[in-house]
C-alpha cells in the first residue's frame, strides 16, 4: 500500500494518535464493531497487540485481514469483517486517514514488546542464577556438610570412650570446637548461596527464621499466600536478610519491624528500624544488588533513611507480571495447560498441579491405560483419546510417546504404590471410565476390567458405579451440546 507510505512520509509523527482510540476510530468509521488491529514485529517475525503481547491472527470464516505496509514492509494488519472487502476504497480511505495513528501505535507496540522481552530475559537471568546457586548449595549440603556433621557425632562418641584419658579428651574437644566453627562457616556460606529454608518452608518460614536469629529484636507480621513464585520468594528473603544485617551491623538499631503481605497481585515488603539512618544503595553494596534483583522482577525498592531517624526499606514485587512473563516459556505454558485440565476436571487448586512431575504424569497415564486393559486392550480411537488428553494436559512429548507405545509391562498395583499416586486413585478410575465411553456405549469387558482395577487399588465398587454414572451423564450432556452447537451448522463444516 504505497499510499500509506507516501502519506506517512508527510505526516508529522509528533501528532501521535492515542492508541486506545485507534481501533475504536476505525470501528466507527468502517461500521465494524469487531474490527481489531495487530502490529508486525520484524525483530522476531510475530504479530503483537497494541500492548506488545504476542497476538494470533484469526483463521475463522467471515473474517478478513488487510495488511498495512510502509516502505514495502508490513507494519500492521486490520482484522475485520469480510463485508468490508466489498468496498475497498472506503477501507483504504479509512486506513489513510488514520495513518499517523497507526504508525505511532506500531512504534508504541514495538517498544512495549521490546520491554516485555527484556523484562522476561532479566527474570530468566535471575532465575538461572538462582538455579545454579541452589544446585551448588545442594551439593555442599549433601556432601561436605553431611560428612562433617557425621564426623562431629563420631568425635562425641570418641570423647565418651576416652572419658578417663584427660589428654585424649582435650585433643578431641579441640577437634570438636574447630569442627563446630567450620560447620558454622559452611552454614553461613550455604545460606548466602541459597536460602534452603525458603525452598522447604516458603517465604513465611524463611522470614520467621530470620526474625529468630540472634541480633536485633524483630516484630514480624506476615500475610501471604502459601507459596509465591520461587524467584520472588528468594528475592524477598534476601531483602529482609540484608536489611536485618544492616540494622544490626551498621545502624545500631534497637528494634526492627518486618511486614510482608500479598495484595492485588503484588508482594509488599517493608522493613523499618530505629537505627541511625543514612543507608543508601551505594555502588557495589548489598542494597544495590537487591535493588537490581527486584528491578529485574519488575518491582521497586525504595530506601528512606534520613540521618538519625531510622531506615525504612519498602519493596513491591509484582506477582502477576512475573506469571505473565513466565508464560512465554514452554515449560510454564505446559503447566498452564495442566492447571486448566486439573481445574476443569476436578476443580483442583493450581498449586496441586505444580507438584506434579513428568514422572507422575507418566505413571498417571500408564495407570489409566492399564485400568482399561492396556494398549493391547483398547481401540485405536480410545488410544487417540488418551494421547489427545495427555497432550492437552501439557504432558511432555516424551511422556505422551511413552504412553502411546507402552507395552503394558506393569501391574497397576505396583504403579499405585509409587509416591503421590494414592491421591489419584479415583481420578484414574474416572479417566479409565471416560476411555470406556469414548465411542458411545462402553464395552462390558472393558468396564469389567476397570472394576477389577478398582478392587486391586482399594476403591469400593459402589464408588466406581457412581463415577460411571457421572461419566454416562456427561456423555448425554455432550450429545446435547453437539445437537445445540454443531448440528445447526453441519452442512457448513
Amino acid at each position, binding site marked *: 500500500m504505497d499510499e500509506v507510505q507516501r502519506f506517512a512520509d508527510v505526516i508529522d509523527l509528533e501528532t501521535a494518535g492515542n492508541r486506545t482510540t485507534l481501533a475504536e476510530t476505525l470501528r466507527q468509521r468502517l461500521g465494524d464493531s469487531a474490527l481489531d488491529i495487530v502490529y508486525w514485529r520484524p525483530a522476531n517475525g510475530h504479530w503483537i497487540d497494541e500492548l506488545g503481547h504476542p497476538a494470533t491472527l484469526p483463521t475463522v470464516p467471515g473474517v478478513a485481514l488487510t495488511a498495512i505496509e510502509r516502505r514495502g514492509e508490513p507494519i500492521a494488519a486490520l482484522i475485520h469483517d469480510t463485508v468490508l472487502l466489498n468496498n475497498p476504497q472506503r477501507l483504504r480511505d479509512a486506513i489513510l486517514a488514520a495513518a499517523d495513528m497507526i504508525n505511532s501505535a506500531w512504534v508504541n507496540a514495538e517498544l512495549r514488546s521490546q520491554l516485555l522481552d527484556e523484562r522476561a530475559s532479566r527474570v530468566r537471568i535471575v532465575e538461572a542464577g538462582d538455579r545454579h546457586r541452589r544446585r551448588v548449595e545442594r551439593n555442599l*549440603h549433601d556432601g561436605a556438610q553431611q560428612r562433617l556433621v*557425621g564426623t*562431629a*557425632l*563420631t568425635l562425641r562418641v570418641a570423647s*565418651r570412650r576416652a572419658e578417663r584419658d584427660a589428654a585424649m579428651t582435650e585433643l578431641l574437644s579441640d577437634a570438636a570446637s574447630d569442627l563446630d566453627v567450620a560447620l558454622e562457616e559452611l552454614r553461613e556460606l550455604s*545460606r548466602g548461596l541459597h536460602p534452603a*529454608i525458603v525452598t522447604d518452608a516458603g517465604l513465611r518460614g524463611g522470614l520467621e*527464621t530470620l526474625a529468630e536469629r540472634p541480633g536485633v529484636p524483630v516484630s514480624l507480621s506476615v500475610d501471604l499466600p502459601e507459596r509465591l513464585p520461587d524467584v520472588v520468594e528468594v528475592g524477598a528473603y534476601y531483602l529482609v536478610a540484608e536489611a536485618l544485617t544492616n540494622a544490626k551491623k551498621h545502624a545500631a538499631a534497637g528494634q526492627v519491624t518486618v511486614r510482608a503481605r500479598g495484595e492485588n497481585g503484588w508482594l509488599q515488603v517493608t522493613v523499618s528500624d530505629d537505627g541511625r539512618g543514612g543507608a543508601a544503595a551505594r555502588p557495589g553494596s548489598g542494597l544495590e544488588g537487591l535493588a537490581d534483583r527486584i528491578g529485574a522482577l519488575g518491582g521497586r525498592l525504595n530506601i528512606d533513611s534520613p540521618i538519625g531517624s531510622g531506615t525504612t526499606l519498602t519493596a513491591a514485587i509484582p506477582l502477576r507480571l512475573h506469571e505473565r512473563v513466565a508464560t512465554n516459556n514452554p515449560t510454564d505454558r505446559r503447566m498452564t495447560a495442566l492447571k486448566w485440565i486439573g481445574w476443569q476436571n476436578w476443580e483442583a487448586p493450581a498449586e496441586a498441579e505444580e507438584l506434579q512431575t513428568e514422572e507422575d504424569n507418566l505413571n498417571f497415564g500408564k495407570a489409566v491405560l492399564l485400568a482399561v486393559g492396556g494398549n493391547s486392550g483398547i481401540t485405536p480411537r480410545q488410544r487417540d483419546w488418551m494421547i489427545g488428553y495427555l497432550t492437552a494436559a501439557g504432558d511432555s512429548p516424551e511422556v505422551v510417546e511413552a504412553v502411546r507405545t507402552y507395552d503394558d509391562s506393569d501391574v497397576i498395583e505396583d504403579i499405585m504404590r509409587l509416591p503421590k499416586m494414592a491421591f489419584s486413585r479415583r481420578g484414574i478410575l474416572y479417566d479409565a471410565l471416560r476411555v470406556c465411553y469414548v465411542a458411545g456405549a462402553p464395552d462390558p469387558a472393558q468396564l469389567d476390567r476397570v472394576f477389577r482395577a478398582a478392587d486391586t487399588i482399594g476403591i469400593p465398587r459402589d464408588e466406581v458405579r457412581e463415577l460411571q454414572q457421572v461419566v454416562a451423564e456427561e456423555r448425554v450432556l455432550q450429545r446435547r451440546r453437539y445437537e445445540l452447537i454443531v448440528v445447526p451448522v453441519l452442512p457448513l463444516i
Partner: protein
Amino acid sequence: VHRRPLRVILVDDDERFRAMACRALTTDGVEVLAEIDNGEEVFDAVAHWRPDVVLLDIRLPGMDGLDVARQLRLEEDGPVVILISTLDAAYGRRVAAGLAAGFLPKDQISRAAVLEIAGLAPLP
C-alpha cells in the same frame, strides 16, 4: 524420670550419616528401632514399632520431612517428632513448633538433647 531406654526411629536418606548418628545414639544408651531412608515408609514403621521419638530429616527424596511431620501430627497417640537438619539456624524453632516438638541440628544429636526437646527430661 524416664527409666526404660529411649526408643527412636531415625529417618535420613544418607546411609553414612545414619550409621554415625545411630552409633552416637546407641553409645548414649538410646535404642534405635529402625533406620529409614524415605518419608513414605515412616508411617508403617511408626505403626509397627511405636517409638517414643521419630528423628526426622527435613530434606528427603519424595515426601519431605515437613510433609511427614504434618501427617504424623494428625495421628492419635503418635510419637514425638523431632526434625533434624544439617542447616541449624536456618530452621528456627517457630518452623518446627508448628509441626513437631522441636528442631535439632544433626551434629547435636544426643540422648540428652532428644529428651529435652521431647519434654521427657527429668527436672534438674
